[in-house]
């Protein structure tokens, strides 16, 4: 924050002699070009202000008993009343929080390593053409929407889907995986892997391609086995990237697959599927508790920012680059 204010204020204004120097500088042709560049930025800036920063300010309704027909200007202020849900341990809220954290943990453990393993397997393919082909197939699901993916999964694994048809025709019974609260978290995790594991390899493959080949030759000369090469050369080369991605994931710890869950929630029931994002949606837009939902959303956003900044700090302490440096 402090850096923002310092950099935003031109140094000339601090020294007090600004009145004389600024107009002179504006006359130089270079600065007319600077102004042209500013006008280039205006449309994008306007969209950013209108649809990002104004809604950001709109979070004040978290401190109001917001009524749609009265509006932000006239709704009564209630201080921190709306936040009681968060801090007094409302049962529905705690359930959403617990489901969210469980899913984050499951996905860090089971989803995160998959692209690394895939990248290592891809990297050792001998034929370049085959490698490109496999990559292109595996990247594709990333570009599909969650609606498409949920629909595909239903058609494949649902009660009347392909798999169960096959099982039934061979008298193997049915495997009830879609719409089953017990397997819901596993299903979500598998869907995330199916969609994004292939795409996730891009960054790892890029990092692998930058490893100095001499390291492999030297280690082989010293008699390192394949596994030791992976352990001592390949994985260390991926370390910074892994830390960077873990930081980004940590910052997102409170957001788990909003659209994905929303689409499948009705079949499973709220007990096992409610997460923070769906809690905000279900209580605010569907249930009409605008203030409370906005308060939960605001707390979630603030905690997210703190998590990113904190994780970045930790990365610096370990001597890593992290996401940014100030």
């Amino acid at each position, binding site marked *: 924050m402090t850096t923002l204010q310092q950099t935003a204020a031109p140094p000339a204004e601090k020294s007090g002699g600004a009145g004389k120097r600024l107009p002179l500088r504006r006359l130089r042709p270079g600065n007319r070009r600077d102004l042209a560049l500013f006008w280039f930025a205006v449309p994008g800036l306007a969209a950013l202000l209108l649809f990002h920063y104004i809604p950001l300010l709109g979070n004040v309704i978290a401190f109001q008993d917001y009524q749609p027909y009265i509006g932000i200007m006239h709704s009564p202020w209630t201080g921190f009343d709306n936040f009681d849900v968060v801090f007094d341990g409302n049962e529905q809220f705690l359930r959403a929080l617990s489901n969210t954290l469980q899913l984050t943990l499951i996905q860090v453990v089971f989803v995160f390593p998959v692209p690394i393993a895939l990248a290592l397997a891809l990297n050792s393919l001998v034929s370049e053409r085959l490698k490109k082909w496999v990559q292109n197939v595996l990247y594709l699901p990333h570009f599909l929407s969650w609606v498409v993916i949920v629909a595909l999964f239903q058609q494949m694994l649902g009660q009347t889907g392909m798999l169960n048809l096959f099982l039934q025709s061979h008298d193997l019974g049915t495997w009830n995986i879609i719409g089953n609260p017990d397997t819901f978290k596993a299903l979500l995790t598998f869907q995330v892997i199916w969609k994004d594991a292939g795409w996730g390899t891009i960054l790892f493959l890029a990092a692998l391609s930058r490893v100095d080949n001499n390291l492999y030759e030297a280690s082989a000369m010293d008699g390192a086995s394949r596994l030791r090469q992976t352990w001592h050369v390949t994985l260390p080369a991926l370390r910074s990237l892994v830390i960077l991605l873990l930081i980004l994931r940590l910052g997102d710890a409170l957001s788990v697959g*909003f659209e994905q869950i929303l689409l499948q929630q009705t079949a499973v029931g709220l007990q096992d599927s409610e997460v923070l994002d769906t809690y905000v949606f279900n209580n605010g837009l569907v249930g009409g508790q605008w203030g409370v939902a906005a308060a939960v959303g605001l707390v979630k956003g603030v905690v997210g920012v703190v998590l990113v900044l904190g994780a970045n700090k930790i990365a610096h302490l370990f001597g890593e680059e992290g996401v940014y440096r100030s």
Partner: protein
Amino acid sequence: MTTLSPTRPRRSGGRTHRAYSAIPGESPGSPPWRALKSLLLLVCVLLVVVPFVAIVSTSVAGSAQVTEAGGFVLWPDHPTLDSYTALLSGGLVSRAMMVSVGITVVGTALSLVSSIMLAYGLSRPGSFGHKPILMLLLMSMLFVPGVIPTYLTVKQLGMINSYWSLILPTMINAFNVIVLRSFFMSIPKELLDAARIDGASEWSILSRVVLPLSKASVGVIGLFYAVTYWNAFFNALLFMNDAAKWPMQLVLRTYVVNNASLSGGQIDAAAGAPVPPAQSLQAAILVLSIVPIVLVYPFVQRHMNKGVMIGAVKG
């Protein structure tokens, strides 16, 4: 690298030594290990490919075969396009396709133009307003307004049930702008200075020097925007109450995910033709919402690694 290393001695007989590998990178490992890895990749590829094949087959299978198979078909015996003609000859799905295509085309164009301009406007440190605008852009990735304030803003602007509500709120993606900006900044300064000395305006520098040099990046960013618009589901759910204005994703959700039955006015079963089986119709809707992505995919995937890499390394 390969020119330096001798050919693999495995071919010429005798025990191999790991240092003499023709493949750059790790040595290939023992045959069972390699077979295991190939098998793993094969399984992954099949997991992706088989659902697509099944869906496409089911969508073109005749009703007799669908009934006989109990719902799904892995390979159609007598392919027919009945489901597609029923869906696309007027009615809900045809309209949704048009809405989705329109929003994707207009939205991508607007997003690209405004993002390129914003990225170029921010590409020279020290220009007027450079720092505060860049800060606003970067901060927008960190501070995300919640669903509720966004909904209220769009409502306040009177854009509920307007197609603009599916375009304007997502028009600028900060990450995409940063990727473009870092690419623009990597263009040698001398090129731009030469154009300036020749008296080119900033506009013609952008359109005649910068853009021709950054086709790959702009292509990839354009793909990302197009995919986002095509896939937009939640914004449509929020802002579009009028079913006549639904894009494909909402249709897909209602008639495939939630399994509502398509009937009467929703499909055009004119001339007394028999309605194709529900399973084929659902599969066809699914295919229709995947096809545009598969169509643009090959054009841009050539540049994908390059374009994404620049963002990853510098962004």
